[in-house]
């Protein structure tokens, strides 16, 4: 119903879609490759 809150906004977003929308260009969509600070 219109009164209900849809946390997905009506779209079934996959991990890669979420990251793409954020402008991230990660390896294979969701993998960090670079060296991480200790």
């Amino acid at each position, binding site marked *: 119903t219109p009164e209900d*809150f849809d946390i997905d906004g009506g779209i079934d977003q996959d*991990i890669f879609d*979420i990251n793409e929308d954020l402008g991230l260009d990660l390896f294979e969509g969701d993998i*960090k490759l670079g060296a991480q600070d200790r």
Partner: protein
Amino acid sequence: NSIIGEMYRWPHTIPYVLEDSLDINAKGVILNAFERYRLKTCIDFKPWSGEANYISVIKGSGCWSYVGNRHVGRQELSIGANCDRIATVQHEFLHALGFWHEQSRSDRDDYVSIIWDRILSGREHNFNIYDDEVSDSLNVPYDYTSVMHYSKTAFQNGTEPTIVTRISDFEDVIGQRMDFSDYDLLKLNRLYNCTSSLSFMDSCNFELENVCGMIQGSGDAADWQRVSRASGGPETDHSNMGQCEGSGFFMHFDSSSVNVGATARLESRTLYPKRGFQCLQFFLYNSGSEDDQLNIYVREYPAGNVDGSLTLVEELKEIPVGSWQLYHVTLNVANTFRVVFEGRRGSGASLGGLSIDDINLSETRCPHNIWHIRNFTQFIGSPNGSLYSPPFYSPKGYAYQIYLNLESTTNVGIYFHLISGANDDQLQWPCPWQQATMTFLDQNPDIQQRMSNQRSITTDPFMTTDDGNYLWDRPSRVGQVVVFPNGTEYSRGRGYGTSAFITYERLRSRDFIKGDDAFILLTVEDVSHLNSTQNQPVPTSSVDDLCSEITCENDGICTVRNGKAECRCPSGKDWWYSGERCEKRGSTRDTIVIAASSTAAVFAAMLIVTLVSVYCTRKKYRKKTSSNTTAMTLETQHAF
């Protein structure tokens, strides 16, 4: 497929920190994901207590992870906005445990076609293949059902799929975000040499004649029988609903053949608890009297007590007649024990009895409530597909209701509503930090093979709506007046959930609907304690400090051995890095060249030495021969 190299593995118990940046709902979801790991694998998680390496879960931008244990001390994993779904957390932790995506394995092209001209410009690299020097598929077939597979729409520039499966039936299967697939578990358990799990205890569908080691009780009037159908019902078992000829067994207590008050006990094999709390789940069918009942006992064996002490845990009465019902019973046993099922003949007339099937026992928490939806398929895509659950109460006393929207022809929607209840005057409003976990149950007989679909939402007492009210305020203040089917009026607050809970295609891909019955498992728990900061111990030892002094090149990893930092260098089947900083590259080909060159050089040197020796010897021999000839001539001359 996993990253090659033992240095990338984590210990079986992984230290973690849930950072303050995380949303409280995300924290709860992450803890639920850990429970799935504990049930289905040998991987466990513990709050960080100073170990050298641990996973720090943050709310960063997006959902991402590193692959494998990078030995950097604090290794980040991000569960950002909209990433707080259990399968997404499982996916990211599989990366951290050392897994790449399924479709990047070397034999990918045998199973899917990548449609390159449908991929967003500049994102083609996401579809690269990595050969078996980089990743290992662990002798497991390509898995369309993996939680690590992209969905068909990944990185598309339009509306057409970027991945087309060679077997078309799998086109809508790839990209599932429900739970681990069987092959995901096989790979993870192979990679980490798992032989047991922390929380799984037993599963029994009675297909084998040994009935999972269960035994008949002594001193009772009757026995439970292993049958494939019972005269008064059911006609089939629950495991496969009679679809497989010659199989499909369950246990039956024929109450029609015994006197009122007579009992039959069925005892499980001996079980050894680790955590001290258990959830017993099973399906029960009543074809006897409405007064027949099933009692659940535990027989505990504390040290020195060989006979065991019997304790009644729960009496199941008024069992609905004529259909398989799902039951959960919470146990809290710390000693060695057996579970005892006792059927008891009630006073009413009986033409059948009690039947049990698909028993699962695990050291997990039982759901608080079950919503059993009968004749499910008739609601799919129908104008009558707006279903509201019966009212339920949370342990804190909040009344709630679930709304399932089946009107769409593609997706199932699910929403959580607070409703007015008997305890409202004693409760805190707006309702603070109650996490509702809604699970569409995959009715696979084995709990470890289930791929149930789960979403969680958490009530935020500060959240407001467009009209300025608090979303989670008292329903009688901010809700709408509605009516139960029996005519009773009540107030219902606004729903909070998702229209994209699960697609019908995925619903049909597993045992979500069985005998036209569906089950939604519900848990509403207080998660306000997750608002507080997790204790952060001071890192132990100087491991990090020592490693901070050196830099390993070429993806080498610093470790501390005997108090000294050293680099562990990556290697493949026929290549490796070496040197103090992994700066030197070697390969089998180099070795062959070096060996061949060395052999040739040694041969040449020996040849030269031999030739020089021969030459010198001959020269010396000639000189000697020549002087002997001169002396002999002189002697001869002298003689004449």
